[in-house]
Structure formats: structure tokens, C-alpha cells
């Protein structure tokens, strides 16, 4: 019976005011949409990268590759293929031989078509063999290609042809090894499967011919042509990777001694997809967590307002026998229905948000001209998960808040008086508070002695909270809350100066924790300053001024719980956006320092295609060039103390010319060296010395736990498996050119042979020359080499701008959280108008102008928003400054703290403006309330 009463009450309340019910649903759905967006973004990155298995690989699971000169290439490939064909390889259903080379493709025309594509690849493969390679000819992309291109012709990938502005019948110029050949495009092919692995299919023998015609001395500088045997495992497009580990092992065993490299291409690609998708899912969920928290606070506010509005009827129902449990159930049923609706609608909205983020991410991560390369992937599991999580969070919030509501004081409710919850101290509460103090003290002791920044930092706030909880029943609550909150904020600001040794190089999580704790403490402090505000208002109104302010501030100051919830909701979002904005600005500002530190006194960094590298003598002869240093580049396998797994990492070799105009700046160097230059000169002399970047051998997908230090031992392995022991002589301050690790050119060649190239140069210009102009001229003059010439500032800017763009993308995503805050404030104001009809009616009866009522509501919303903006921005700047100055993550001195004035201005102006806009409608409705009607409704 009671249950049916609860159900009936819930149903009637939903149907009674559908518009108000809709507002609650809107308020609750915003949090769900953030969760849905995070899940869809993760799946979309995963799916987009995974799609590479179809477009770039098809039936290819592994590659066995050898590098050889033109005279040796066919023999080496044939030997390799023969060895594999005559071995019984388990789980393998096909082998395919191919020859490939890096090349620069261009239309040969200068004005009317796309610029040369500097990093393309040409391939020689038999279409007939491809059709029989793997389980399905369609997967290979050659189902309808019967013959290989005739002499002097090529089949081009449709995407590359489009970039170069070429179509069938046009001529394409292929440049490699210092020579170039023209081919007529006779067919455009879909870049799918084997056809997607390289950009153009050329007739057999073309690559060797290009390499043979290389001018004397040029071939040694270039990457050798590649001979490959592609391997297809049993299974379909993706499940074939189940055998990849076993097949790779077999291939390595079979090709031992062949100087061949075996790579599980598809397994690597799918693993990368999963890792990237997972990381982005986690990142967006974590950052979105702030918005979800804001959504939860909004929902609590809405449920409390619902209860407040129905207080009298609930009191009467309780008086005539409705049990507390039934009140709770009634609210829960109603809330669960709202939660279910909001979970579904929120998920739909989240898909829209994800689409926007993916579109932005396409511009950040991929080709700015083709952001569509990132797909929006909707997986049923993610959508179901979003609905479930969204419903769960909303339902739990409603259930917990309803529990508090159900404990209403019947008399106070019937008389419509504010209910003063007398919180009785239970034994459990006392026990938990005592436990909190004990745990806090223990954490502090451990944090201090070990030392652990995480424990040391978090223990005093825990002790403060627990102590406040114990004292709240013995001392005035306001005094306890204010003192506790002030102490916590003071602790957050003082912990580093007080404990410099113990708090040395804390992880970034400490600062996130710090931000959250400071926001919570600031909100407690702000809501307990109501008497100060009241005094200020009294002073103002004592002279007959500020009636609107008086009316506006009365409610937020009197209803501290609600104001606190609103403030916390809003402040959290502003805090996160300011925090991210600060790092975006810091990155932008650090480019000039980074450029200076990595330039070694040179002006330009000039890259060319590895298979068709620039001849340094060509550059040296240029009238504007004063000096050139050629770098040897490749990748080697390394291990060190914190990375025991062999990890492939870029390796760069340099010679004396590199130190001709200075040296890159070092963050740390061996004490033996007086200057950074001394350390580099030592590396030139000592083949056992290495200089590394700050991110050396760190995972790109996990937070850094250890960093390289001077004196570290590093083991490098060359292609024949021989181990070379090296010692770190210095750590680079910044590594924008991505050297990875630096050794002498001689040592680099010996470690990397035969897969290195000398396609990068540092160029010093004659004094007074414009680096930008010369860079553009060089790139144009040597376009056949796929030349890219940039200033160091441009290089640093380019890399930093991607990071800054990504941060801005996160800010935009969080902007949705700001929308929650703003919409939440709007929803709360709409409900406030309903709740205060009686007071508004009376005010109007007493002679309050409609204009004053409207101003009062607008000012009230602006007061809350301005408070939140102040708290959020101030604390975010303080936290960000601490991160930059104190965190190990920014021990790099090229990063300096800057206040992002543009972001700060935006975060002040936009929220206040939008707050006024969202409050305009409820404020207008309030002003339109007719006094007689409002007063009559109550009679």
C-alpha cells in the first residue's frame, strides 16, 4: 500500500509540472553526456587507428625486410623468400615479395598543382601474387588489378594523386637516390590493403634503376632500397593477429643470420590503437570527471530544490502517516525516472559532443586539410556503458539526497519553516573522525620520513577535516568550518616552502589533488563569509542605496548549502579550464627558449627524404649559407636502468661541424665538464659516451616515473645483435629536433648500419639574412629532395602548437562542463522563481518595481558566478604556478610560469555574460509575477 502511495506520488509529481521535470532531466543529462563523449572519443581513436589495418595492411600481418643496394636487392629478396617458402611456418597462409623505396613524388609542374609529397614510397609487386596472398583478394586491394604497370607507367594511390593534383594520363616525377624519373599515371587505385602500404606501384626494376643512376657518392648517404616478404597469418582482417607472436618468433628464428628485420606490423598497429584509444578514453574521462562532479552537484541542488518546493505537502503526508521510507522511495522513483531519461538523452548529446571533439582532433593530430581521417566510432558497449554509468551516478545522487530529504522535520515542514538539521553525533561518526585524525597523523609521519610528497601533502587536510568534524559539536560550527578551510588553503600554499626537501619533484597528481582540496576549502570559506557580506550590505542600505543588491544577495547568503553546491560546481569547471589555459600559454611562451636551447647556434634545420637526401655540398654552395652540419639518423634498440625491455629509440650522430657555432643547451652534465660544449666534445672523442633527451626511453603512453640522469648506464644493440655499453654524459634541456640520443657520427653509423640516413642538416646563415626567407627558398630550390627547411622557432612552435592545440581541445571539451555550470545556474534560477513566488508577490505588493525584481535575480546569479570565477581562476593560477616552479614534470628551465591573460579575460567575461543571458528569462518571469495572483495562490 505504502509502496503504491510512493509510486503514485512520484508519477503525479512528474506529470504535475512537465516543464519543471524537463529542467531536472536537462540538469542531470549533462554529466552523462560528458561520460558518453569520453567513451566515444576513446573508441573513435581506437577505431580510426584500427582502420589502418584495413587501409594500410589488409592481409599483411608481418613484414620481413632487408636493405640492399640495387645490384643485390633482387638476390637478397629471392633468398629470403626462398628460405621462408621452404620452411613449414605454422599459422601462415601466404607470403608475398615486394621491393620498396622512399621517394619524392611531384607533378613536375610548379604553379597549378599541389606541392611535392616529400615522404612517399614506391613499390614493386606482382598483382597476380597479391591476389593470391591472404584469405580474400578484396583485402589486398588488388582484386581488380590484373597486370603490373607497363614500362614508364605507374598506378597511383587515389589519395596521393589527389594531393598532387594528378589524374590518369598525367605524368608524375619520382625522385630518389639523387636522380629522378618520370612515369605516366595509367591508373588510380584505392589505398586499401597492400595497395595502401605504399603510394605508387612502379614496374619491376624501376627502383634498382633509380638507385643505380645515383650520382657518385650520393647512394651512401641515402637509405638503401628495401626488399620485403610480407606474411599473412591464418584468420580474418583483425583476428589474424592472434598468431602474430608465434609467427614473429618463427620468422626471427628462420631469418637469423640474414640481417633481416621482422616486424609484426598489424599487431603493433592494433596494440597502438588499443593503447591510444584507452589513454584518450582515460584522459577525457579524468578531465571530464570535473564536469561530471559539477553535474552531480547540480543534480543535488535540483533535488533539494524539488524537496523544498514540496516541503509543506511532504510534511502533511508525513503527519497523516506516510512513513519516512515511503517519502524516500517516492523521491527515488521520481529521480530514477528522471535519471533514466537523462541517461539516454545525455548519451545522445555526448555523441554530438564527441563528434565535435573528433572533428577538432582531426585538425590537431592529422592532416589539417582532411580532418575526416578520424572516424566517429559508435560501439554498443560504450553507449550502453554510458547509459549505465550516467543512470548509476544520477540514481545514486538522487537516492543519497532523498535520504536527507526524508528526514524532514514534520512541524517545520507544515509551517513552511526552514528546517535546521540537527546532526546528531553518532558513535560511528565519532569513530570515523578519530580514525581520520589517526590516519592523517600516520600519513604525515610516513610522508615526512620516507619522504612521499603525496602522503605529506594530503595528510593535514585529512586531519583538519576530521578534527573539524569532532569539534563541530563542541564549538560554533561556523568558527570551526572557517578556521578549518582557512588552514587547508594556507597549508596548500605553504607546503612547498615549509618542506622543500620532502616535497621535491612531486607527481602531477599532487597538484590535481591540491586543486580539488583548495576549491572545496575555498567554497566552505566563501559560504561562511555570509555575515561579512551582510554587514557590507547593511552599510550600503543604511544610506538608502543598493536595494537591488540587498534583494540579490539575501537569498544566496541565507541558503548556504545551495550556494555552496552552486559555487563548487562552477568553481571546479573554471578551475580546470584556467589550469589548462595556463599550460597552453606556458607552452606557447616557451617556444623561443626551446628554439634557442636546441639550435646549437644554427639558424635552420633542413630535412630531406631519406631515400633522396640533400647533398650538403649543394647547400654549402648557397650564397646565404655560412655553415652546415650533417646529422646521421636512425633508430636503435636500447635498455637502461629503468627500461629493461629493449626499446627502439631515435639515435643521432654528429661531428665537429655540429659544434662549429655553439652547442645545444644541457639540463645536466657530468661534473667533469665545465661547459655544455665540453660535454659534446667528450662525446665526439669517446665512443662510449651518449647525451640523451629528458624523455629518453620513457613510455609515450604512461606518466614518467623515472628520468635519465648523468652517469646512467645505457646498452645499445646494433642490427647484428651486438651490445654496446654507453654512459650518459649529459641530458638535453630541450629536444625539439627529436634527436632522441646523441653520439658521435662514427658511433651512430656503426650502431645503425645499414639502416641510417644522412638526411638532416643544421644550417648556419650569413649574418643579416632572413632565416624565414632563406628557408622558403631552399625548400623550393630542392623540392625534388622533399626538402623541408624551418627555423628552430618554427620547429618548436610547430611541436608546441600541437600540444597547445590539444590542450585547447581539452578546454573546448571542458567548455561543455562550463555549459553545465551555466545551464545549472539557469535551471536553479528558474526553480528559484517558482519557489519564491510568494515573496516576489509580497515585494511587488509593497511597491517593488518589476525592474528591481529583474535586477535582483540577475545580480544574484552574477554574484554566484563572479564568486565562482574568482575562486576558480585564483586557485588555478596558484596551483599552476606551483606546478611550474615545484613539479618535477617541469624541472626543465625552458618553461616559465605565465598568466594566460586572454584565457583569464575570457573566463571572466564569458561566464558572467552567459550567466546574465541564462538568467534573463527567469528574471523576466519573476518580474512578470502579478502580486495579487501570487498572494492568492497561497490563500
Amino acid at each position, binding site marked *: 500500500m505504502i509502496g503504491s502511495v510512493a509510486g503514485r506520488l512520484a508519477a503525479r509529481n512528474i506529470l504535475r509540472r512537465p516543464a519543471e521535470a524537463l529542467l531536472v532531466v536537462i540538469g542531470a543529462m549533462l554529466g552523462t553526456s560528458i561520460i558518453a563523449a569520453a567513451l566515444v572519443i576513446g573508441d573513435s581513436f581506437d577505431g580510426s587507428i584500427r582502420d589502418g589495418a584495413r587501409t594500410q595492411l589488409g592481409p599483411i600481418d608481418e613484414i620481413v625486410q632487408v636493405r640492399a643496394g640495387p645490384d643485390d636487392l633482387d638476390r637478397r629478396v629471392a633468398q629470403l623468400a626462398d628460405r621462408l617458402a621452404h620452411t613449414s611456418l605454422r599459422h601462415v597462409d601466404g607470403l608475398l615479395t615486394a621491393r620498396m623505396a622512399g621517394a619524392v613524388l611531384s607533378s613536375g609542374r610548379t604553379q597549378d598543382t599541389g606541392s611535392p609529397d616529400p615522404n612517399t614510397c614506391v613499390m614493386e609487386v606482382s598483382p597476380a601474387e597479391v591476389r593470391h596472398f591472404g584469405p580474400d583478394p578484396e583485402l589486398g586491394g588488388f582484386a581488380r588489378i590484373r597486370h603490373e604497370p607497363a614500362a614508364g607507367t605507374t598506378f597511383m594511390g587515389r589519395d596521393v594523386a589527389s594531393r598532387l593534383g594528378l589524374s590518369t594520363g598525367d605524368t608524375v616525377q619520382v625522385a630518389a637516390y639523387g636522380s629522378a624519373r618520370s612515369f605516366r599515371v595509367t591508373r588510380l587505385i584505392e589505398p586499401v590493403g597492400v595497395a595502401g602500404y605504399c603510394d605508387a606501384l612502379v614496374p619491376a626494376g624501376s627502383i634498382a634503376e633509380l638507385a643505380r643512376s645515383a650520382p657518385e657518392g650520393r647512394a651512401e648517404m641515402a637509405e638503401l632500397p628495401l626488399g620485403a616478404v610480407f606474411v599473412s597469418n591464418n584468420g580474418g582482417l583483425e583476428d589474424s593477429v592472434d598468431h602474430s607472436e608465434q609467427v614473429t618468433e618463427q620468422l626471427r628464428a628462420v631469418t637469423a643470420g640474414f640481417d633481416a628485420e621482422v616486424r609484426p606490423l598489424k599487431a603493433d598497429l592494433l596494440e597502438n590503437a588499443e593503447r591510444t584509444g584507452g589513454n584518450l578514453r582515460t584522459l577525457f574521462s579524468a578531465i571530464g570527471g570535473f564536469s561530471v562532479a559539477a553535474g552531480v552537484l547540480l543534480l543535488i541542488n535540483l533535488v533539494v530544490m524539488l524537496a523544498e518546493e514540496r516541503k509543506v505537502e511532504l510534511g502533511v503526508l508525513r503527519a497523516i502517516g506516510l512513513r519516512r521510507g515511503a517519502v524516500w522511495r517516492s523521491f527515488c522513483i521520481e529521480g530514477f525516472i528522471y535519471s533514466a531519461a537523462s541517461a539516454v538523452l545525455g548519451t545522445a548529446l555526448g555523441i554530438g559532443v564527441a563528434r565535435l571533439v573528433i572533428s577538432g582532433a582531426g585538425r590537431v593530430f592529422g592532416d589539417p586539410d582532411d580532418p575526416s581521417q578520424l572516424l566517429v566510432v559508435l560501439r554498443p558497449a560504450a553507449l550502453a556503458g554510458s547509459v549505465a554509468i550516467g543512470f548509476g551516478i544520477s540514481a545514486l545522487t538522487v537516492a543519497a539526497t532523498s535520504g536527507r530529504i526524508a528526514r524532514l522535520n514534520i512541524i517545520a515542514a507544515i509551517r513552511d519553516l*526552514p528546517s535546521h538539521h540537527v546532526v546528531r553525533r553518532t558513535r560511528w561518526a565519532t569513530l570515523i573522525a578519530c580514525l581520520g585524525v589517526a590516519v592523517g597523523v600516520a600519513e604525515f609521519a610516513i610522508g615526512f620520513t620516507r619522504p612521499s610528497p603525496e602522503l605529506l601533502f594530503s595528510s593535514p587536510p585529512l586531519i583538519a577535516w576530521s578534527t573539524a568534524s569532532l569539534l563541530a559539536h563542541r564549538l560554533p560550527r561556523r568558527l570551526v568550518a572557517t578556521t578549518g578551510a582557512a588552514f587547508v588553503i594556507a597549508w596548500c600554499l605553504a607546503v612547498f616552502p615549509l618542506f622543500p626537501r620532502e616535497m621535491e619533484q612531486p607527481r602531477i597528481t599532487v597538484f590535481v589533488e591540491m586543486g580539488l582540496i583548495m576549491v572545496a576549502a575555498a567554497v566552505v570559506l566563501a559560504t561562511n563569509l555570509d555575515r561579512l557580506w551582510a554587514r557590507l550590505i547593511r552599510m550600503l542600505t543604511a*544610506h538608502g542605496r543598493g536595494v537591488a543588491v540587498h534583494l540579490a544577495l539575501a537569498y544566496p547568503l541565507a541558503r548556504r548549502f545551495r550556494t555552496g553546491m552552486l559555487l563548487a560546481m562552477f568553481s571546479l569547471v573554471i578551475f580546470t579550464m584556467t589550469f589548462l589555459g595556463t599550460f597552453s600559454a606556458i607552452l606557447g611562451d616557451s617556444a623561443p627558449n626551446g628554439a634557442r636551447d636546441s639550435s646549437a647556434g644554427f639558424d635552420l634545420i633542413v630535412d630531406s627524404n631519406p631515400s633522396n637526401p640533400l647533398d650538403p655540398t649543394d647547400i654549402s654552395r648557397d650564397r646565404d649559407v655560412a655553415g652546415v652540419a650533417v646529422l646521421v639518423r636512425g633508430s636503435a634498440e636500447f635498455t637502461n636502468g629503468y627500461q629493461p625491455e629493449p626499446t627502439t629509440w631515435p639515435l643521432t650522430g654528429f661531428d665537429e661541424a655540429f659544434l662549429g657555432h655553439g652547442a645545444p643547451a644541457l639540463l645536466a652534465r657530468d661534473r667533469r665538464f665545465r661547459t655544455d660544449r665540453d660535454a659534446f666534445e667528450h662525446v665526439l672523442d669517446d665512443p662510449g659516451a651518449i647525451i640523451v633527451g629528458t624523455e629518453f626511453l620513457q613510455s609515450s603512453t604512461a606518466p614518467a616515473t623515472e628520468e635519465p640522469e648523468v652517469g646512467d648506464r645505457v646498452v645499445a644493440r646494433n642490427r647484428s645483435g651486438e651490445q654496446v655499453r654507453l654512459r650518459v654524459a649529459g641530458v638535453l634541456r630541450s629536444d625539439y629536433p627529436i634527436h632522441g640520443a646523441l653520439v658521435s657520427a662514427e658511433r651512430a653509423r656503426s650502431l645503425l648500419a645499414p639502416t641510417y640516413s644522412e638526411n638532416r642538416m643544421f644550417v648556419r646563415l650569413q649574418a643579416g639574412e632572413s632565416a624565414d626567407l632563406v628557408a622558403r627558398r631552399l625548400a623550393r630550390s630542392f623540392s625534388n629532395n622533399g626538402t623541408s627547411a624551418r627555423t628552430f622557432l618554427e620547429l618548436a612552435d610547430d611541436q608546441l602548437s600541437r600540444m597547445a592545440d590539444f590542450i585547447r581541445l581539452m578546454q573546448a571539451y571542458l567548455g561543455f562542463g562550463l555549459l553545465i555550470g551555466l545551464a545549472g545556474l539557469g535551471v536553479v534560477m528558474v526553480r528559484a522563481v517558482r519557489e519564491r513566488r510568494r515573496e516576489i508577490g509580497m515585494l511587488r505588493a*509593497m511597491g*517593488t518595481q518589476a525592474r528591481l525584481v529583474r535586477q535582483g535575480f540577475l545580480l544574484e546569479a552574477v554574484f554566484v558566478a563572479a564568486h565562482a570565477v574568482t575562486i576558480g581562476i585564483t586557485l588555478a593560477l596558484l596551483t599552476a604556478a606551483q606546478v611550474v616552479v615545484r613539479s618535477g614534470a617541469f624541472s626543465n628551465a625552458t618553461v616559465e610560469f605565465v598568466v594566460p591573460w586572454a584565457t583569464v579575460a575570457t573566463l571572466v567575461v564569458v561566464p558572467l555574460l552567459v550567466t546574465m543571458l541564462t538568467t534573463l528569462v527567469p528574471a523576466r518571469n519573476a518580474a512578470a509575477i502579478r*502580486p*495579487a495572483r501570487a498572494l492568492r495562490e497561497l490563500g
Partner: protein
Amino acid sequence: MTGPILSARGVHKTYRSAGGETPALRGIDFDLGAGEFVTVMGPSGNGKTTLLNCLSGLDGIDAGTVVIDGHDIHNLPDRQRTDHRAKRMGFIFQAFNLIPVFSALENVELPMLLAGMADRSTRARAQELLDRVGLGHREDHRPAELSGGEQQRVAIARALVSHPAIIWADEPTGNLDSHTAEDVLALLHEVHADGQALVLVTHDHDIGTSGERLVEVHDGQITYDGPPRP
């Protein structure tokens, strides 16, 4: 008695809802002299409160005129009508209708602020009125911290603070016990003694006969207007 400070002629008011039309006032003619104490009586639902609302300008009318201080208040724009209300009228309601987030003192001084009549003496005037209604010691208390009788006394102080010419009181003792109701009534008589006109809507026969003039309303029409009948 000088000329009326309020003169209503042919006032009609009809409530419209989905269920149809309900005539509330049907051709009301009414004059109020300065300093008069008029009680309005009649059965529930016959138009007493509507009469008060329409005469004070809180609610609109469908036909007729209500002239106060030479102005037909229903022809005034909302801004002027509101301004007029703030300066010339005070209201006391059965449900007290104090602003819950303001203290007693703030509630009392509010009309002065709204009427633009506030100056350095406002607070003193509000304190003086609270003293007069016997609540000087509770000026910092919010309505929820006061009893029903105390709240109504604050409401009376609020109605008086800006020296209004007319005080409208709608069942001011309806929510109070008899003893507290007597106190409140005595206070209203004091108000009247100060020379302010008082229009008091009531069910209570004793209160109804305590004024100088009695108006009885039945079915939206004035059926009696004269000295109180025993």
C-alpha cells in the same frame, strides 16, 4: 471628514480559467475617507479579498475606475502604480508574508528603501516601529525564528514604516490565537488613531464591528455600507 482619498465606481472583476468564468466583483462603488477605519465582511468566496486587491491596485479590473489621490490607478502604467503603492499604501496579510531571508529589522525598513524614501534615519525609524510593536529586542531575528503573532506585528510595523495613507489588512488575525489576535487588533486601532485609513477584511464578527464603518460583500456586490451593526 474631507473628500475621499479613494473613490471606486462600477468596478467589475471576473476570473477566467479553463473551467469557465467566475464573476468576483459586480459593479462595486466605494469611497474611502482619509483616516477612516473600514471593515469588510462577508462569506468566503464572495469577493472580499478580490475587492481589497482591486481597490489597492494589486490586481487588475475588467471595468470601472478606482481613483486615488486624483489618479485612476488602473490607468496608470505598472511602474507608476507600483510607485504609488510603495509611497501611499501598506499591506498586512493573513500569512504575514515576511521575506524569510531578511531579519525583522530589514523587513521593516524594506518599504522605505523601495519607495526611495530611505536616508540615514531609515534604520532608526524601523527600530522605532519595532519598539512600538514590542519587538525591539528581536530585530535581528529572521521570520522563521519568530512566533505567528510576532511575525504579524513585524508585518504591521512594515506596513506603517513609510507613513502610508491607506493600510490594507486581509484577515490579519486569521492565523492567530484569540489572545494574540486581540493584541494585533489593538495595534491596528493605534494605527487608526494616528490618522491613517485602514481597510480590514475579516470573517470575525467582533473585529468586523470594531471599525467605524462596515461594508458587507455578497456575490461580488456591496450589500451593506454603513455603521457597524451589532
